[in-house]
């Protein structure tokens, strides 16, 4: 491999989903085989490219690709350890979700449009992960908004259109706040590439007020997608989208984009020292802690499965923010690894919710009684995901909560420890009743709208396979957390690089 070829690797990773997506838009509705092959081709190419990049980054390389754009702010794609964490997560889960979506949407109308935007959405997510400065990040952040909107309104019902409007109002508003913040910061220090330790320290003493303002604006902008407390209103409504979309929105694309942005902002733009000097970490942490408790509390009251999961997302994503805002290395490991773990667990739960809805017509929690007998595999996966969310060993969720707890102790944050314990209890309180209903309560009458999607299996194999794959990952990531290929070891690698800049 020549270095010339390698410098285009970040671009190629984005194009591997963008180009198939653009071709899919032009396909006719009946060209099912061609569409599926294009999708799978894109996924495969992307995974291979990501693998190449992963090997190189592990060995210590960093990839750059830049195009001139604004004065002082080129469009930069940068493949470093942190971006790879998110890239790997989104590529692997894209594979799972694509297969799931093919099964889920079989014979429904407008599939070309759906898969086109689906690929666009993944391209935007990967672009966001790979963007090397704030301006490029902003670009993909907005692109993500635009690419997900058609997915949210895909069903075209009045309800989904209303949700779409609300989603747009929130995310475009957030994007604008981010834009203003980025422009303000750009006028102070330009927009150089993300670098461990940040690049604002030179002007901290001179412009502390403006820096705080810029940070506030950008957190407000990112907080919309990360569903931080007063800005979370779009998320439960966006549940009207088809199940693969909810899965993608919650586990990978939208909420994670916000959380990932916060990580970049804290570590690679402001840096730990400037964050401390400007006293920005404390308010962010408190806000995130409040979101954790609020999300869990609201989840308790929801009777719709997907809505309960949505509020759970609001709460769980803020774990990442809290881990980052504690500014300690151990807490950072917890936050970073939770980015991956939460993604895998939440996508499993959404796949399960989709399976219940598609196979049995079940949408409400009190209709789930006895579903474990009718759909054992789905219910096992759901149980695994739920136990992971609560944080029970040996699932992946335990690992992230363990490190977050350790981090709270290490940085002397008793309050956060209390928040974790209380939220864990709340998690148990809203997930365990579902598990109880699944396995231990007898079925109540017939299912609302049962369909036999497969002769031998409990449902269509394309709906089962991705779910089992991600459920297996939950266990594997927990059991093999200490090996070299686990997300935990990668998070430790990132933290090592982020905290050893001086």
């Amino acid at each position, binding site marked *: 491999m020549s270095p010339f070829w390698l410098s285009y690797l970040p671009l190629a990773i984005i194009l591997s989903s963008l180009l198939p997506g653009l071709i899919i838009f032009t396909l006719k509705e009946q060209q099912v085989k061609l569409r599926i092959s294009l999708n799978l081709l894109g996924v495969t190419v992307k995974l291979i490219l990501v693998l190449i990049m992963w090997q190189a980054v592990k060995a210590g390389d960093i990839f750059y690709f830049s195009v001139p754009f604004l004065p002082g702010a080129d469009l930069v794609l940068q493949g470093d350890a942190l971006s790879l964490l998110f890239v790997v997560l989104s590529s692997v889960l894209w594979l799972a979700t694509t297969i799931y979506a093919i099964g889920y949407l079989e014979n429904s109308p407008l599939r070309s449009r759906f898969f086109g935007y689906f690929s666009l959405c993944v391209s935007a997510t990967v672009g966001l992960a790979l963007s090397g400065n704030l301006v490029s990040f902003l670009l993909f952040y907005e692109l993500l908004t635009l690419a997900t909107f058609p997915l949210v309104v895909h069903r075209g019902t009045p309800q989904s259109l209303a949700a779409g409007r609300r989603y747009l109002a929130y995310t475009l508003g957030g994007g604008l706040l981010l834009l*203003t913040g980025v422009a303000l910061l750009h006028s102070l220090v330009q927009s150089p590439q993300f670098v461990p330790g940040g690049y604002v320290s030179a002007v901290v003493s001179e412009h502390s007020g403006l820096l705080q303002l810029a940070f506030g604006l950008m957190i407000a902008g990112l907080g919309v997608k990360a569903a931080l407390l007063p800005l979370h209103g779009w998320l439960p409504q966006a549940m009207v989208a088809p199940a693969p979309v909810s899965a993608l929105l919650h586990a990978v694309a939208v909420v994670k984009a916000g959380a990932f942005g916060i990580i970049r902002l804290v570590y690679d733009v402001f840096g730990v020292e400037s964050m401390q000097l400007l006293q920005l970490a404390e308010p962010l942490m408190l806000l995130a802690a409040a979101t954790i408790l609020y999300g869990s509390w609201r989840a308790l009251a929801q009777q719709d499965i997907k809505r309960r999961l949505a509020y759970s997302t609001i709460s769980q994503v803020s774990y990442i923010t809290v881990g980052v805002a504690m500014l300690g290395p151990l807490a950072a490991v917890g936050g970073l690894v939770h980015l991956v773990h939460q993604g895998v667990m939440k996508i499993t739960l959404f796949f399960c919710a989709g399976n219940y809805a598609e196979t049995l017509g079940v949408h409400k929690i009190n209709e789930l009684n006895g579903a474990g007998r009718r759909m054992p595999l789905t219910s096992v996966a759901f149980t695994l995901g739920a136990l992971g969310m609560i944080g029970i060993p040996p699932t992946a969720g335990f690992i992230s909560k363990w490190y977050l707890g350790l981090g709270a102790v290490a940085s002397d944050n008793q309050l956060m420890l209390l928040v974790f314990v209380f939220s864990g209890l709340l998690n148990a309180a809203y997930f365990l009743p579902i598990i109880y209903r699944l396995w231990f309560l007898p079925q109540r009458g017939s299912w609302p709208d049962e369909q036999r999607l497969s002769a031998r299996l409990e449902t269509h194999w394309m709906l089962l396979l991705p779910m089992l794959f991600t459920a297996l990952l939950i266990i594997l990531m927990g059991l093999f957390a200490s090996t070299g290929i686990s997300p935990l070891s990668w998070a430790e690698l990132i933290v090592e690089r982020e905290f050893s800049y001086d």
Partner: protein
Amino acid sequence: MMILLLVLPLLSALLMLLWPRIAPLLALFSAAASSLLALQLLLQVAEQGTRYWLLAGWPSGLAIAWQADTLSCLLILLSTVLQLLVGLYAFATRSRDKLSQGFWPLSTLLQLSLTALWLSRDLFNLYVCLELLGLVAVALVSLSGRKAIKPAFNYLLLSLFGSLCYLLGVVLLYGAYGLLDIAGLASQWQAGWLSNSALLLMSLGLMLKAAIWPLHAWLPAAHAAAPAPVSALLSALVVKGPLFILCLLWLQLASTSQAQAMAPLFAAAGLAALLFGGWSALRTPFAKNLVAYSTVAQLGYATLALGLMLTFDQPLIFAALWLFVLAHALAKAACFLAIGEMSATLGGKRLTILKGASQTMPLAMFAFAVAGGSLIGLPPSGGFLAKWALLQGLWLQGEQLFWPLALVFATLLSAAYVFRVVVLAFDRADPVAPDFAPQLVPQWLALLPALAVWAMALFSEPLLLLLRLEAL
């Protein structure tokens, strides 16, 4: 080369009158050739600096003087390229839309008057160009037939009144200084009641013609009544002519104290245009009126930038002003062509016909959405570039909070009206007739300027650099 840019449209317009059967071909040919010439001129000027030219070798002061700087060249290129695109669109839809033969010579004359306007630096020349521009524009609006008579007549009266105000100002200045070219006047300029009133009179006329708030009321009716290609030209180019003169007057002629006194008024008018124009675009039930109100709102950005430029004298804000103009011209041409195409194919003027348009006419709807993205200012479109430059210019002035906030609010409004259409398009479509077959070529032609406005991002650095230099 400059002279060729003027002679070519003039000659082809005359030939069209003699030989109406080949008028479309002539118009397209002249637009295409002019585009190439304009590109060459732009490259030349960017390399060698501003070029001056005196008509027929008369000495300066007597002769008609032309001046081609990079801004003029950019604007010429913009007008010729849009002329070509719109001409192609009109050609592709001529049998369906029953476009009058008069469109071809008139649009070529429009190109001539715009080119002459961008090149003139002499108050009387500018008046002549402005007058020609206004008359041609009115004639173009009236091409729609009987329903357009009333808006066209209103437009004519207001346009004449505007020109008259402007002419009165010119006469006052000529009486006092005996000079008409802007550079000469600026060197002898004295702030006083005479120059004050002349400036105000001229500004009144120009603001009326450029539909700057609160003198915009004629625009939505006139632009919505015209045929789609004409609305595209009017919104994209014609209103920019008077705006250009307004900028010349206040940035080059007016003294600092006069400029400072006027600046808050311009900024306030721009903000009001953004808010009221955006609000009206949100309320109107008609598709073309929505786009026309959006023009009023977007002109507000330019006016706001002019006001801020007069206050702060910051080259970046000047660059932002013209970036707004360039981005808006491309985006608005795409919007009008796309909306025109959709209402011609789906039948009807109301917004509700666009229900489900993302399924029935995906290409045209995509063009509208892409152009709308630039109107909102999503990165990396031309509209984003302009907004970025304006924000940077503002932040460089220190602790400015009001104007960035106002910009954010205005952007949200524009997002609201653009997505009002887009959300409607994602509704489930009503079933269409089995022989429903939208034409593809016009839809692609609508998409081209929309893509071009996003492609501006590729040239962002040279554009910003050229325009900033122009302000010094």
